[in-house]
């Protein structure tokens, strides 16, 4: 498939008349690991909700894999994986039952095989037959990623994936994201405010401030652009007035 993985043009959204996202123009190429930075309430989750077709934007357009998120929802959904900030699946069902359900919803031809392969790929086969309700945050996150990739999407949306994880969990997640990008060629769109994670896994970053995209560039170019800064955190702080 040609063209960018994600393309937004004049994208905006309002809740009850209050705008939360203003005219976002953003293109993310295939194979990128994109870090979407912003303070709480900046509009990151709203953007992901639009791109995963959970909500309809009030203006502008957004394409995922070339398909319009408003008019071609089902095709968009067929190509994406989504991990929400709070992973909540069916607690009375086992991990395997949950994953099989989501694989079937995605139209996977051999759901059982896909689930077994995904669990093995993520090295969490031991969780397969345990009920999700008994899982710790870290275990839930691993099974959450499994549900997001069980149908082998080409674009993966992660909303604050490190929230609530301990350092070991964060390290494991970082490795998983890099593997998914390298092994399966997935484009990753990651909402976060964990700056340390962004610098370690992302190839490109975008900064959202009060619903406006104020910066977008590659990680390399960002470091070059702010050579005097000590860390991404310093750059992020300085970016308050940097235009996109």
């Amino acid at each position, binding site marked *: 498939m040609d063209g960018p993985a994600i393309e937004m043009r004049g994208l905006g959204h309002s809740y009850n008349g209050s705008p939360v996202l203003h005219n976002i123009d953003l293109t993310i190429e295939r194979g990128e690991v994109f870090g979407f930075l912003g303070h709480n309430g900046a509009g990151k989750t709203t953007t992901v*909700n639009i791109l*995963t*077709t*959970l*909500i309809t934007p009030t203006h502008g357009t957004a394409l995922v894999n070339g398909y319009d998120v408003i008019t071609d*929802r*089902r*095709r968009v*959904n*067929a190509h*994406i*994986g*989504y991990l*929400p*900030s*709070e992973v*909540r*699946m*069916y607690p*009375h*069902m086992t991990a395997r*039952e949950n994953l099989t*359900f*989501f694989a*079937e*919803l*995605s*139209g996977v031809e051999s759901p059982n095989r896909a689930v077994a392969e995904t669990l093995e790929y993520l090295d969490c086969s031991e969780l397969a037959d345990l*009920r999700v309700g008994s899982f710790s945050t870290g275990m839930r996150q691993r099974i959450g990623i499994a*549900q997001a990739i069980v149908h082998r999407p080409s674009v993966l949306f992660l909303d604050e994936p490190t929230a609530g994880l301990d350092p070991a969990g964060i390290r494991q997640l970082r490795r998983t994201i890099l593997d998914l990008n390298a092994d399966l060629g997935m484009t990753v769109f990651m909402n976060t405010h964990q700056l340390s994670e962004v610098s370690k896994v992302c190839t490109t970053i975008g900064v959202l401030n009060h619903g406006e995209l104020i910066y977008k560039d590659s990680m390399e170019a960002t470091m070059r652009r702010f050579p005097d800064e000590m860390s991404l955190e310093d750059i992020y702080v300085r970016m308050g007035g940097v235009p996109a």
Partner: protein
Amino acid sequence: MIDTIASQQLLSMRRQRVFVVAMGLFVAMTAAAGALGWSSHQTIVRVYEQAVKLLAAQGQPAPPNPFLLKPELSLLSNMVVYIPLLGALLALLIGHMAISDDGPAGRLVFSRSVSRGDYALGKILGAGIALGLIMLTALAISLFSLVVVNHAVPGLAVLGRLVVFYGLSWLYVMVFALIGMGAALLSRRRSFSLLAALGVWLGFTFAIPQFTSGLRPTESLNPIIDPVGISQRFFEVTALARPISIAEQYKAASGQVLAIVPVESASSTLSHTLPIAVAAALLVAAVIALVRRHDFSRSSYED
């Protein structure tokens, strides 16, 4: 897609203690209805046998066995009360759980290629299958009770009536499953939506019949005709709404199906069933419409 959603719902539901307990209670009450029928039958028969002996000793002819004068399915008359009480309550719970359990996982479901129409139909199908299985269990228990009491397998006519009765009961309780779903879709607060659905159930089961039956509380609870007629003007007016009082319509129709109240005609039984079917159809449409407008992007239901 519809069947995938329905089977997930059934799997998730049967693992939940609250559902298992409510279902167990309903099945136990069905068995109790049979046991009560059997017990009253035994009492009548024993009293009759003693009376026959006494009359024979006095050289008098014995009257016919009173039990034989009663309709064969009369021992299930308690079911006509249990279904609007426990069956409808269980259905309400099933409908509520079907939607509110998806509060947290709904975002994941709709990030897939799932149409909202398919989702709603899957949920309704899941509830329908669950209630169908429960009604089948109740049918089997009732059949067993009849075999125990009569020492014989019921004839086809009785069996047919029993099947129609549980089919009608399924339709009736589906109305409450749909009410449970609708309430869960209208409110994000799990406890509030359950309470609201319970309020509707109370209204349909107890409050509305008080007005539409012309203040005949006995009739609103039991499938018998109260001899006291409508005497007050207010209740004469409210009684006009009787056709839409589905609890009363259910009792009238099921009483006729079980032949425990005088059967007017087959069309009269159907006319009692029609308001229930219309209510169910309207609620299916309402649930589909509510699912279409529901915001599944919000993370979870609050308690």
